[in-house]
């Protein structure tokens, strides 16, 4: 499970040239519905460097999924400018710069687990033997080797979600977009997948935009935690996370580390506090 990035169709140079994986300037999104206009996002400024791990966190309805969908070119912003690896989201999508895992697994019920994981490879013309090699690696990674021939309806929700994660990783994308991918997992699998994800990202130097509702998860995974606030959805604060990490990624001890708890507290305050309360930050680090 240590394949270099260069096995994807994209030469690393293609995105090494562009300094930033994602660059949003004043991005807004207004949905026009029958009931009226809904401002899902307003004036979002965010720059995500190549290889950087950014977690989006915030209360329900603050536009996290919407921001992810804009980056993925599944929706278009109504204002502002958004680029992905220096090009329009559309061009980035067509160049298959990113892998995506949605809130729901979204597996094709008529495909076996293995065939579901191989779908992106198949769509992009990877040969049968290449697909088998890659899907075998990924099956092992998500711990579903014995279930390769099963069909989605024979799996639990958490197992389905793991298949979806494996699928998003299939092409070793330079940008990973993940919308609460671990939400359906049990705590143990969740922690294992988190550790794996950190390792994969360190190895493949992929940038990640990771939506989550869990503060510890955001802190454990991310280089920066983007805290969002609702109505209208906007970025309230960006909390940089400086945890001591080694080249192999963050190990399990980190979860009990004091700096970890300090970071958790900072994110929690940013999430709950408004401006003036935040001034008192640092007073109570439990």
């Amino acid at each position, binding site marked *: 499970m240590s394949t270099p990035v260069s096995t994807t169709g994209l030469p690393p140079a293609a995105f090494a040239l562009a300094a930033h994986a994602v660059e949003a300037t004043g991005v807004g999104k207004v949905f026009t519905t029958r009931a009226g206009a809904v401002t899902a996002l307003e004036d979002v400024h965010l720059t995500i460097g190549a290889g950087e791990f950014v977690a989006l966190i915030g209360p329900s309805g603050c536009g996290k999924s919407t921001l992810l969908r804009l980056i993925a070119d599944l929706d278009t912003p109504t204002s502002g400018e958004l680029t992905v690896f220096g090009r329009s989201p559309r061009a980035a*999508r067509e*160049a298959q710069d*990113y892998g995506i895992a*949605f809130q*729901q697994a979204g597996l094709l019920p008529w495909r076996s687990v293995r065939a579901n994981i191989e779908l992106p490879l198949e769509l992009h013309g990877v040969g049968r033997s290449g697909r088998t090699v890659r899907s075998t690696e990924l099956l092992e990674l998500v711990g579903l080797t014995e279930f390769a021939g099963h*069909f989605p*309806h024979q799996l639990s929700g958490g197992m389905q979600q793991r298949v979806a994660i494996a699928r998003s990783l299939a092409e070793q994308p330079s940008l990973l977009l993940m919308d609460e991918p671990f939400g359906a997992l049990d705590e143990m699998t969740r922690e294992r997948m988190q550790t794996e994800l950190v390792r994969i990202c360190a190895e493949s130097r992929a940038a990640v935009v990771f939506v989550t509702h869990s503060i510890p998860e955001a802190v454990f995974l991310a280089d920066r935690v983007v805290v969002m606030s609702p109505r209208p959805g906007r970025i309230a604060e960006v909390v940089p996370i400086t945890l001591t990490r080694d080249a192999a990624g963050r190990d399990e001890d980190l979860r009990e580390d004091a700096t970890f708890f300090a970071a958790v507290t900072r994110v929690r305050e940013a999430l709950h506090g408004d401006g003036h309360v935040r001034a008192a930050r640092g007073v109570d680090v439990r």
Partner: protein
Amino acid sequence: MTPAPERVRRGWVRPLRRLAVGVLAGLAAAAIWELYTLLGPDAGGHLFGASLLPRAEARSMPHVWDVVARMLAPESSATGAPSVAVAMLQACWFTLRVALAGWLAGVVAGFGLAIGMQRFRLAESAVFPWVVLSQTVPLIALAPLVVGWGGKIQVGDLVWERWMSVALIASYLAFFPVAVGALRGLQSPEQAHVELFRAQAASPWRTFRSLRLPASVPYVIPALRLAAATAVVGAIVAEVSTGTKGGIGRLIIAYAQAASGDPAKPWAAIVGAALLGLVAAGLVSLLSLGLGRYRHSEVS
């Protein structure tokens, strides 16, 4: 890996069991029929002068065994006349082939229409009402027109034959369920799946082949079966209204004329027509045997 024997068993046991249930249902229908001839009023049931129940005497409702016996007896008193059953089977074979041709044409047309309507929203709103409207035109009115047009067609060596008109009319009935079912099926993938393919920058053709087509299977299979039944009905009605010889439609008319002196004879033809519909639908079910994995309900 999924154990292979299990899947094989699931593939074969279910159709066999359905066949057994079908046979049992046929026997039950025969038993009810007999029970009615036994217990029903010979003069029929009347309420305020309107006749509600059929007359239970042998002329209106011959015994099941009489019908069977009539089938085995010669068709007419002429020497060398085939038995009713043989004549019936020959006629069924003729009609089945014509209906099959009509079914095929209808499936191609219906699926083509569905693809067009799925692909282009405008086409859907423009074409769909006409698709529905097409089925309100009575077949009887259509038949002579088709025969008339057919008579004028001559492309090279191809001469328009009478059975082609019949097949065309059958296809006119058969395309409808296919168009409706396939359209629903092609539109059935959920938003998340469509977006998955969009995120992969899959071409419309790829999305069709790998997503919409497999997702449409649970909708298309019943539509194909329905189309087979309507193609048979269409072929029979078209045979009658175009005066085409050789098929079961013609046989029904001919035998019906003998009803007064030979009451079991028309029933033999009717049984034949019913069997024909079953066989046609059964043939389509065979088509779906290999498609089991596309047919369990959507999960995830």
